């Protein structure tokens, strides 16, 4: 059974089409990654699933129901921009949010107790929210979305702003929830998280669906057209070689999108500079994202900081 079924949904804001004839099915029990550049329609899609926005056209089904009051209690939602009441303690906020989902205080306390240790929030539960660090309040926000034991969890940018340790802690919690059967939809700009965690990936660009499938399926569409090289001269050694469509410079190595004979390319490159590493590979999700979102981009794309 599908947790979310979106059929031919469109949403306009004034003259801007935020979502254009979108059809998507999220299977129950899966982790589904929503990716796409800023302003491409991710948040609008999520808000329509949450019934915070009503589609202009098309239909949406969530856990077999129309969105709204019927299923709201079964969904945990972490919006992209989220806040907590500053003057309440973390525990008061969690209880309040749980009550709004129709849970009793004791239910909420029991659910919170399960996550104290994994998320390491124990000492902070009875502190006022405005005394929490950013990472800690994000973890409290994450707990607040799962205190009502949702069947479907929708997380908009759950890892943004978390340090690597806390990001790993939240990632582990998400995977644990999936193991318990929760369906998880999350949007992210962190392609490596999407690659590692998601069963399926959906990319939206300018309101339209441009990718939808497992990572393997998506990569298969782009073939083995990428060569990862590491040379002494770096990106300068690649200049002017025949068959190069695009170069993504990661600093220590370069990903070359190449069409033609890889052997001839290797020979030509070896004539210019000593080669340390040469690998035929699939394009990364990051690369695919950039190819779609920046088709007219410069020939050499600098990629600082990514892995």
């Amino acid at each position: 059974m599908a947790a979310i079924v979106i059929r031919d949904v469109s949403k306009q804001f004034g003259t801007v089409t935020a979502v254009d004839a979108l059809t998507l099915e999220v299977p129950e029990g899966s982790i589904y990654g929503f990716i796409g550049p800023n302003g491409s329609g991710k948040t609008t899609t999520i808000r329509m699933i949450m019934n915070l926005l009503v589609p202009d056209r098309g239909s949406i089904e969530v856990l077999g129901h129309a969105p709204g009051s019927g299923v709201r209690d079964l969904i945990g939602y972490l919006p992209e921009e989220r806040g907590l009441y500053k003057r309440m303690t973390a525990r008061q906020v969690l209880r309040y949010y749980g009550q709004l989902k129709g849970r009793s205080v004791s239910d909420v306390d029991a659910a919170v107790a399960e996550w104290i240790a994994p998320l390491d929030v124990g000492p902070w539960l009875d502190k006022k929210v405005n005394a929490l660090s950013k990472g800690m309040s994000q973890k409290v926000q994450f707990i607040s979305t799962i205190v009502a034991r949702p069947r479907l969890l929708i997380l908009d940018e759950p890892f943004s702003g978390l340090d690597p340790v806390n990001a790993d802690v939240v990632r582990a919690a998400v995977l644990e929830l999936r193991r318990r059967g929760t369906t998880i939809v999350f949007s992210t700009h962190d392609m490596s998280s999407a690659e590692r965690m998601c069963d399926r990936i959906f990319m939206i660009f300018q309101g339209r669906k441009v990718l939808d499938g497992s990572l393997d399926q998506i990569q298969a569409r782009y073939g083995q057209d990428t060569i990862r090289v590491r040379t002494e001269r770096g990106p300068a050694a690649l200049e002017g070689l025949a068959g190069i469509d695009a170069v993504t410079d990661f600093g220590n190595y370069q990903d070359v999108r190449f069409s033609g004979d890889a052997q001839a390319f290797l020979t030509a490159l070896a004539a210019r500079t000593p080669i340390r590493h040469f690998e035929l590979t699939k394009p990364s999700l990051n690369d695919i994202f950039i190819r779609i979102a920046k088709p007219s981009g410069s020939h050499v794309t600098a990629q600082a900081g990514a892995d």
Partner: protein
Amino acid sequence: MSIARSLAVANAEFQALIRTKFFIFGIILLPVMIGASIVFTNYAEKRVDTDPHRIAVIDETNRLTPAVLAAAAAPDPQDDTAKDTTAVPLRGGGQDPEATPNELDITRKPANLEIVPIAIGGKSIDDLRLDLSGQVRAKTLYGFVDIPADVLTADASDATRMDYYTENTSNSDVPRWLSKVINAEITRDRFASAHVDMSLTDRLSKTTRLTTRALVERDANGQVRHAREVHSWETFAVPFGLMYLMFLAVMMSAPHMMTAIIEEKTSRISEVLLASVTPTELLAGKLIGITAVSVLLAVLYLLTAMYWAFASGEWTLVQLSLLPWFLVFLICAVLMFGSLFLSVGAACSDLKDAQSMMQPAMFFMLIPIFMATIVLRAPNSAVAVGASLFPTAAPFLMMLRLAATPPPPVWQVLLSVVLTAGAASLFVWVAGRIFRVGLLMQGKPPNLPELLKWIRA
């Protein structure tokens, strides 16, 4: 709509409101502040103007100056501290000591008063005036008064007048006192010239006190019971007290909701809330929360007031029959103004925008306060009836009329309840529409046409 969700919201709002410092201080501070401001005003009226008041008197009649000097030397009869002393009566004695001083007579002797008689000595009046004006400019004099010679003739024409010259034209205490003292002496002098005994006229024209009483009733034993005396403060205390209490109870909760909503919007809590409850449930919860706070506040004050009334034997002030009406009108007022402030909060994304949009709302709240005196003076006049039926003013003004005498006809009370409840429902409905759209809206606040579109959408 789930009542349980709304109650969860209401509980959170209630807790949040009564825990604010503003609320706790407000409960205690407000009565203290009202009391302090009354005491201060009283004190300030007497003490603020303590500069020396050196007043020169050009007395062209040559007969009035001694009386002015005597009055200046006598203690002020209006001054509490000087009460029961042998104040020199301004009207030549024989005044009824029982008579309460006329409340409207607010003549007060200026502090540090010094009267300087000016000898005319053959100079022209214009020269004298010029000379004294120079002294006023040089600050050696505060002002001077010029009494023309013909003021004492009994048939003084209307054109006859005295002139008071000063740089401090805004101080009305000095000329008022001068006018009263000099005129009293002029009157005495005219009586004397006409050979009429002043003490006789005082005795003959003695005023008789008029006492305001409630109506006469026949008691259980068939005796006609003499109606009790109604003090003027008594007729004002209960109606004004109840009206101000209602105003206070609304003010302590409704505007706070606006800031709370804006905080939820700016810290992006609204979206989290709306993922769990409908806008209607959220609005209902918030309204229930502030109503509870207002009622709690009002009940606390009422109980204190009742305790005070019983303890001090003023039990006639306690009118339990007013209580249900008070609660009905209070709830309507909170719902009405609460929805109004919540709508403003939901439509704006920062406090500055909201404050400018809030001004009209505050204006509506203040109208009844301004009109209260007019309504109380003539509770059955067309203006009073109209104002106490107009929904935003009705809770305050109809309450005022209910507590005053004569009470309004029942049909008017019921009509105002119906109108107010109707208006409150309309306000809540509109707030619900604005809530749906406004809560997730960031950026600039909507203009009126946009707002109307939200409401119609």
